[in-house]
């Protein structure tokens, strides 16, 4: 091992080696932070919404005849849909998870308007809601059909019952075991009491970046608005087939209505996380291109460095260096440079991460990313230098005696 002389030689002729080390350092800084963001976003995107994403789709129906009996029409629609072959269940609701638009309210533990409230997403539904959304009821019970009311769109009445998610229950009653929460009463609109009768495992709100995304509440109300949304759960495998059929059926069922904005839950999830998934792809692309550029840069500089020292290589061979010894020399030299680079890179990476946390509210990167990046760049460096190093071994010892 010729560590000492290699180090001393590098120190004497710093410039081109500093360039490589700097490139490695900055590359590492970018790599670490980019992968950190990729990790963070991927974790976000992996969160389940709690509903049956494979089979749910929804559509809007707008009836603009002001004289139509909306309640009757909606009831007819729901019957027709529920009885349609291939449909498992359907409800009238205001929104679905991850849609980006929805309804939220504040809930308090006491009927005191000065108390700070806990935000919760509202899903209007009826007794078919749990089965249509495909959420798991883990405590308490579902609504009875008699407990579901019709409301006009501007009514300020509020039903006295609700089913909340586990996250909401834990937020409101952190010290109460889950099975004891059904039966407790909370307050909405400052003074209206609402008794929790059931708890679902999980049902996300419509806004994926909201801190309270896991807090939602099913409310037994059917709102007879002119524009309504039907949420439909198909039997497994039937979704794509029945979607256009249902659309057609509704559009032609009673005149003067527009059926539009039909979407699947899968599309909704995709759209909801579009920016995150695109960012992930973009960052992975950047990291790949960057690593290639740095790798190629090392190949270039190493080739040049070897070509510049052919006389020296020949001399070393003459003095007794074997071919493997020459290879080891250049691989080791590159390793030393890479080491300086990755140490610098670790420092810069942490610095940049701190700045990004400050400026963009990103998360701190997982600690193991740094050693992982170090190893990656060591490997890239060694791979890059291998070609030029092998060429170095082919330099003939007879070069030492050539007079030019």
């Amino acid at each position: 091992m010729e560590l000492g002389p290699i180090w001393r030689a590098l120190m004497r002729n710093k410039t081109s080696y500093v360039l490589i080390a700097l490139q490695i350092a900055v590359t590492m800084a970018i790599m670490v932070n980019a992968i950190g963001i990729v990790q963070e976003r991927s974790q976000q995107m992996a969160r389940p919404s709690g509903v049956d994403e494979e089979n749910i789709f929804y559509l809007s129906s707008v009836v603009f005849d002001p004289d139509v009996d909306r309640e009757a029409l909606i009831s007819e629609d729901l019957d027709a849909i529920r009885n349609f072959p291939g449909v498992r269940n359907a409800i009238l609701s205001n929104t679905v998870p991850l849609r980006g638009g929805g309804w939220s309210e504040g809930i308090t533990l006491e009927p005191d308007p000065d108390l700070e409230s806990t935000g919760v997403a509202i899903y209007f539904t009826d007794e078919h809601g749990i089965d249509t959304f495909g959420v798991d009821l883990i405590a308490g019970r579902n609504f009875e059909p008699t407990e579901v009311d019709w409301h006009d769109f501007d009514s300020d009445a509020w039903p006295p019952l609700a089913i909340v998610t586990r996250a909401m229950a834990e937020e409101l009653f952190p010290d109460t075991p889950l099975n004891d929460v059904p039966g407790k009463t909370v307050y909405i609109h400052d003074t209206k009491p609402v008794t929790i009768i059931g708890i679902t495992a999980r049902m996300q709100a419509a806004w994926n970046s909201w801190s309270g995304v896991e807090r939602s509440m099913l409310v037994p109300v059917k709102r007879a608005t002119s524009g309504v949304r039907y949420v439909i759960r198909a039997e497994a495998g039937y979704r794509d087939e029945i979607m256009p059929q249902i659309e057609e059926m509704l559009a032609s069922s009673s005149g003067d209505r527009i059926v539009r904005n039909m979407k699947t839950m899968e599309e909704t999830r995709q759209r909801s996380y579009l920016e995150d998934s695109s960012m992930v792809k973009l960052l992975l692309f950047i990291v790949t291109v960057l690593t290639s550029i740095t790798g190629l840069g090392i190949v270039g500089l190493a080739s040049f460095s070897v070509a510049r020292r052919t006389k020296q290589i020949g001399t070393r061979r003459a003095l007794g260096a074997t071919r493997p010894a020459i290879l080891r020399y250049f691989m080791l030299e590159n390793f030393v440079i890479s080491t300086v680079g990755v140490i610098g890179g670790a420092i810069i990476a942490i610095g940049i991460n701190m700045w990004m946390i400050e400026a963009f509210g990103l998360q701190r990167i997982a600690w193991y990313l740094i050693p992982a990046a170090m190893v990656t760049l060591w490997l890239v460096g060694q791979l890059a230098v291998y070609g030029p190093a092998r060429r170095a071994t082919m330099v003939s010892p007879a070069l030492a005696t050539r007079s030019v």
Partner: protein
Amino acid sequence: MVAAIAVGIGAYMTIINVDYVMSSNPIPHRSDVLFHVEVDSWQPNKAYYEPDHPPEQVTYMDGIALLEAGKARRQVLSYKTGRVLEPQGEGERPFELESRSTSADFFAMFDTPFVYGGGWDKSADDNEEYVVVISKEINERLFGGENSVGQTLVMNGDPYRVSGVMDTWQPMPKFYDVNNGPFEEVEEVFLPLSVAIANEFGSYGNTSCWKAPEGGWEGRLASECIWLQFWVELHSENERQEYLAFLEAYVETQKAVGRFPRPTNNRLNNVMEWMEYQEVVAEDVGVLKGLSLLFLVVCLLNTIGLLLAKVTRQVGDISLRRALGASRRDVFSQYIVEAGVIGLAGGLLGVAMTWLGLQGIKSLYGELEFISRLVAMDWPVIFAAIVLAIIAALAAALYPTWKASGVHPASQLKAL
């Protein structure tokens, strides 16, 4: 070398383009006379948005009061709604329209371009006239693109008279209603606020209430729910101060009747201030800006290395040239000029790379409707890319060129 610069410039300028469009001034000739008004009607124990931001929209009570007070040069109150257009032709199906109900000053204040006709006046507002301004596309669809001023169209069963056809207008971002999507398309139909209110057209935008409204439309109008946007036009610092004073007085009157429980917190933001405040430019863009700048740095380090290698390879050449009479400055300028040319070539190739990058962005984010506007490359961006490339190349060349000019004449001749 050219490739290294081109890739770095390409990556950086792609993001810069997106950032530039996202943060561009949507209405440069009027952006500092238009002001978004915010008053803090929010709940007593918690700000609308920490730490102390007032709500981004106004309640109907406040909006209509400020509108009717008329204390600014011009003012406009509006909100997003939806209508169903019923074409009168045979077999034509009705379709929904993104609509905006607004007071009359909208068109003058925001200087919207018209193909035919224009907006309506204050008397139309006062008389609740059923009048509309339609988009060019709707005009094409309903009237074959002809001058339809005075014609009638039916929305949700009511006939409206066309007072004007708006030309293509897509302020980027859609500053006048940032809450509901800063890059969304402009509405297709505009109708008077008074008509919408009288006929109870619900809001299609965001509505937030800290206090539950009483029932019915009346309850909504009298509630603390915020769902409208209010802008004023003020032409001087004087006018601005006067308006602020007026706002303060107004808030006092409201406090006197028990509203506005929070400390007075009136804001007047001009267009650019409002957008900055709204953080219209996505955070991801900022992150990408930082990372792509570092990417460019790596490409530049690469370039410096390549240039250094080139100079070292040519040491014999330089030495000979110096021996034959070239001065230090001759050598220096030769390499600097070379670097400039490389920069130019890199810049041109970099523009191509930027275009490629933007296409990539488009395919990634394609589902976002406004994306094609974000990826349109403008002349300033092209120009900036080339200039940046040349500057970068020159900067990268400084050290190697300095080394080159330091080569002693004939120092390498023995080795030749």
